[in-house]
């Protein structure tokens, strides 16, 4: 290898481990300059937008769940939000509360999976959570137990946690029994001390100092922390309804990715847990806000390395919120309202574990889908990840060994918890030093 004057680096990570789906990273460095940096999403497109055409609106929640095994509820809720707004339906407070509880279950499950199985091994120096469990059994056990509780909460309302079957346009197919809810409520309350300890543990892990400037985009709601509904807002003051998304955000295709890129005012932007906490921490209960500040992190945070603490805070909040919503649970005989389809275009969004998930459906008078468009969080974050990698690598220093550079890149990428199955429309590092 030519080490005489300018070091040439060529890093190629053909399969990124510990991410959801398939991606790769190509990095080419000449001396002190990054020549090429590409996050390549090569997972084949599954063309859901086309499958949806000609289907009845009633089939949509079961169909769109299949886009992602980790966040199926997010797809179901964004879809029913879009269709219900088109049909002029409000399913009422019981349905809203139970959808929020189901969604809390998905956040707990997805965030705990990411913190323990995907992200933490980087910082404690292990290849996997399985290897990490030998030296840190209590940490891994706690994480898997919380993940399991999230799954069980989803099962309460959806019969299973992967591709749950509870949600329909108009409400739910089924209301859980009061004694099952009471048993779940006791488990949620008992887990709150565990999730509080999880927040403190994630905050105690030393993280690189890596402040950057970026725009945060997240839903915001008048009275509650954004989960299953809200208006689309940006940290620069934008506040719009789902129907206006297209006017402010644009999607584009690049050669190296089967996921479409998104930009806002011609710039990359951030969606996800950190974006939500940065813009809506004031919507959290005082005790959760106090816990956030006890971590020593200054909020809002400009460092993506705080995304793991942000996820832990949301796990803690989701447990307390689900417990709160289930406190005075009443069984209802009909957990859904009647639905009459109507022709037109409906828009809906919600906060998937990884961020804003936007849907648009054109429907005919029979209730059949004419056209569908779905913008998932990972494709929105794609441009921001590449921008972050460039800035973060320069800041980290390009003189590190290939192995150190690769690990740093992977940490940066995992901060976004990219879900490639969703986006394909994730990572091998292809780095070249020339």
């Amino acid at each position, binding site marked *: 290898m030519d080490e005489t004057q300018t070091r040439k680096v060529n890093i190629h990570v053909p399969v990124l481990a510990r991410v959801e789906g*398939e991606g790769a990273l190509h990095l080419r460095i000449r001396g002190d300059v990054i020549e090429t940096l590409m996050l390549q999403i090569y997972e084949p497109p599954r063309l859901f937008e086309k499958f949806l055409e000609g289907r009845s609106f009633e089939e949509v929640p079961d169909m769109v769940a299949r886009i992602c095994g980790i966040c199926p509820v997010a797809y179901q809720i964004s879809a029913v939000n879009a269709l219900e707004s088109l049909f002029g339906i409000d399913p009422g407070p019981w349905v809203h509360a139970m959808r929020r509880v189901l969604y809390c279950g998905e956040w707990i499950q997805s965030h705990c999976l990411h913190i323990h199985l995907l992200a933490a091994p980087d910082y404690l120096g292990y290849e996997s959570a399985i290897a990490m469990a030998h030296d840190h059994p209590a940490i891994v056990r706690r994480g898997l137990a919380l993940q399991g509780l999230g799954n069980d909460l989803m099962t309460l309302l959806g019969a299973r946690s992967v*591709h749950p079957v509870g949600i329909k346009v108009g409400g739910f197919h089924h209301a859980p029994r009061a004694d099952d809810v009471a048993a779940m409520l006791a488990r949620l309350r008992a887990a709150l001390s565990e999730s509080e300890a999880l927040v403190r543990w994630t905050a105690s892990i030393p993280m690189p100092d890596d402040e950057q400037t970026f725009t945060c985009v997240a839903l915001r709601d008048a009275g509650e922390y954004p989960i299953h509904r809200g208006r689309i807002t940006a940290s620069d003051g934008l506040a719009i309804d789902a129907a206006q998304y297209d006017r402010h955000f644009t999607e584009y295709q690049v050669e190296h990715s089967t996921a479409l890129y998104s930009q806002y005012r011609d710039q990359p932007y951030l969606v996800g847990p950190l974006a939500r906490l940065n813009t809506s921490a004031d919507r959290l209960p005082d005790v959760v806000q106090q816990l956030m500040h006890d971590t020593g992190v200054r909020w809002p945070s400009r460092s993506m390395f705080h995304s793991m603490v942000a996820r832990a805070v949301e796990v803690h909040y989701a447990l307390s919120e689900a417990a709160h919503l289930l406190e005075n649970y009443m069984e209802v005989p009909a957990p859904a309202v009647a639905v009459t389809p109507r022709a037109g275009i409906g828009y809906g969004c919600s906060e998937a574990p990884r961020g804003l998930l936007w849907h648009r459906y054109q429907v005919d008078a029979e209730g059949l889908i004419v056209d569908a468009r779905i913008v998932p969080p990972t494709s929105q974050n794609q441009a921001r990840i590449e921008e972050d990698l460039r800035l973060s690598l320069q800041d980290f220093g390009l003189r590190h060994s290939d192995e150190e550079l690769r690990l740093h890149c992977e940490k940066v990428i995992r901060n976004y918890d990219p879900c490639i199955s969703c986006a394909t429309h994730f990572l091998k590092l292809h780095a070249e030093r020339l």
Partner: protein
Amino acid sequence: MESTAKPKVAVHKFSSCDGCQLAFLNLGAALMQVAELVDFTHFAEAGPLAPDAAVDIAFVEGSIATPDDLQRIARVREQSRFLVTIGACATAGGVQALRNLANAGEWIAGVYARPEHIHSLDRSTPIAEHVKVDLELWGCPVNGRQVLGALRALLFGVMPAQENDKVCMECKRRQTVCVMVTRGRACMGPVTRTGCGALCPSFGRDCYACYGPAENPNTAALARRFEGLGLVPEAVARRFLFINNGAPAFRDAGLKSGERHDG
């Protein structure tokens, strides 16, 4: 070292939603017990990367959808004593096999501005269409009980008992009231393989066949019953052409109903 004596297991992903791998990752404390029994040599989402290492059991999620997939699955087969497909994508092509019934090129052009950059096969196909498969686990998604059952049996050197019963049998065992008889729902239970626990009928709704066709499914009789419930032929076709549209029994029934509509 002691760990080298453990059976080696790989989990591979092809075109899919990642949901079937979660049957492992959602096992909770049991996942750590499984990791005591076997060595996960390749399981990208969990961390270990050795896609070409020889293993005792390879679990395969996802359908074959790209030219590269064809080469990868051939290597997986060469390196694996037992190859087990997990889920509807690997076993029947998945919901994305709907493109087999349409013009995939046109569809890609409909979604992507520059379709020439998308490297995708025209058809999404099950693993068994390309290599020998030793065991197929149906379901969208498969659950922990199925993958642990298969793993346990194979570690003992036997094939696990296959569940070929219909969902109807499961409803009877669970004393779930029939949603077709009492509520007139177009339930796919009479032709669908059990294994999920008859979840949808227990929620008062129709089964939508995510576990694929049962043994000897009488799809023609069910299609007629659906018409009797007031479904137009096109709607009947959509019932069959859904999650497991690539399974021959469902594909044929769905296309037949669709033709009735066209005729």
